[in-house]
């Protein structure tokens, strides 16, 4: 038995150098991608530290004290039947698991959503404030442009005063012109009337004279006198010639 073991051991020792270099690299090449590619391996120290950090307490001493006192209290409560483990414990565990899960997984999601809502409200308020500030600034700029409004108003007032004065003068002149035109029209009408009267009188005079002359011409004595006068004039002209 012992010799067989020794032979096996020798055989194993003889085999080992030939197997190890050939097999191990092959195993390592097969194993390494499987263990390294999937879940990233966590450093045990970090994992341990995270577990310690998750315990209540600020340092290692307080954590130990809290843990040991919690354990002591639990044992005391259980041993004195202040707390009895029974069906209620199972219900409590299940309900606490649900509440814990809800707080752990739902809490951050709700917090994120609530923060988004809050940020949305904040953004709306901030943009409204910015818009209002901009509107006030624009208004200030608009008002600033009207800073010389007093001088301009005074000038405008003076101009308007002068305009009113000129308008009054112009109106006066217009009235005068109208009056003169009216007088001229009246005078012209008088002149026309007078000339018409004069024409009529001259016409009447001429007609009277013509009528008188024609009447005189009807008188033979007058005709004879005219004829004699005419003959005398002709003779006179001829004698001169």
């Amino acid at each position, binding site marked *: 038995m012992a010799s067989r073991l020794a032979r096996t051991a020798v055989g194993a020792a003889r085999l080992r150098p030939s197997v190890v270099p050939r097999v191990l690299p092959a195993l390592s090449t097969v194993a390494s991608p499987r263990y390294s590619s999937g879940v990233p391996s966590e450093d045990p120290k970090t994992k341990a530290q995270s577990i310690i950090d998750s315990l209540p307490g600020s340092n290692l001493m307080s954590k130990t004290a809290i843990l040991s006192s919690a354990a002591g209290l639990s044992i005391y409560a259980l041993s004195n039947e202040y707390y009895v483990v029974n*069906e*209620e414990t*199972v219900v409590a565990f*299940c*309900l*606490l698991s*649900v509440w814990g899960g809800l707080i752990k997984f739902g809490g951050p999601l*709700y917090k994120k959503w*609530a923060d988004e809502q809050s940020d949305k409200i904040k953004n709306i308020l901030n943009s409204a404030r910015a818009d209002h500030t901009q509107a006030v600034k624009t208004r200030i700029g608009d008002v600033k442009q009207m800073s010389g409004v007093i001088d301009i108003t005074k000038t405008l007032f003076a101009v308007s005063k002068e305009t009113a004065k000129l308008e009054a003068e112009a109106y006066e002149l217009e009235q005068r012109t109208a009056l003169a035109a009216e007088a001229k029209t009246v005078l012209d009408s008088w002149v026309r009337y007078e000339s018409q009267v004069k024409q009529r009188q001259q016409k009447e005079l001429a007609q009277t004279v013509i009528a008188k002359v024609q009447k005189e011409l009807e008188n033979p004595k007058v005709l004879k006198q005219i004829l004699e006068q005419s003959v005398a004039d002709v003779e006179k002209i001829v004698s001169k010639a």
Partner: protein
Amino acid sequence: MSTLSFNNISTEVLSPLNQFEIRDLLSIDALGNLHISITNIGFYLTIGAFFFLVINLLSINYNRLVSNSWSISQESLYATIHSIVTSQINPRNGQIYFPFIYTLFIFILINNLIGMVPYSFASTSHFVVTFALSFTIVLGATILGFQKHGLEFFSLLVPAGCPLALLPLLVLIEFISYLARNISLGLRLAANILSGHMLLHILAGFTYNIMTSGIIFFFLGLIPLAFIIAFSGLELGIAFIQAQVFVVLTSGYIKDALDLH
């Protein structure tokens, strides 16, 4: 709670109905026969009211303009109930019933959720609470209907286009249906919460017995335990859904009283 004695070992067997037992927490016998007591249901309803007050105080957020997380939760609840009220009753006339419906929803929800806290008491699993609510609501809706329509309110019991011959029978059926609202509204809420809690305790009892039977059974018991945890999550959902169903039906009853179908 029954007690079994066996060879000087006393074992208490928890009944699933123990959790619903109403007990006096504090009682004073004064002035002869006057018995003043604070029962566990009264105590937990008071806790609910206090919890509601605290949530509201937190939601006020020192009157700041931008909401905090508490305010946003209240605002989203407000928006949800508001949409229920406007869609179920009336977008315009239903608004005045919103404070009542909102308070009802919050009352039921908070008391349902308090019932989900370990070692607490589910007030809404008691028919005395839910029937008080449902009877008051249906009676209030009926008074509202009479106030608004007078005797014409009885036309609610006459289905539209009903043949004259069938009218007495249908009016009787509708009347019974209307009276059944008193029961169904309260029964639905209490039965859901009661059955959920009872089932949880029955399953927990089985699982406890499995897990305490041996080390292998302890690990085997983890399977039903996972199921109970899932069922507890479902109960949490039921707490919300039942509160919503209650207010949706209440809004429907108010709408019936206002519009007569």
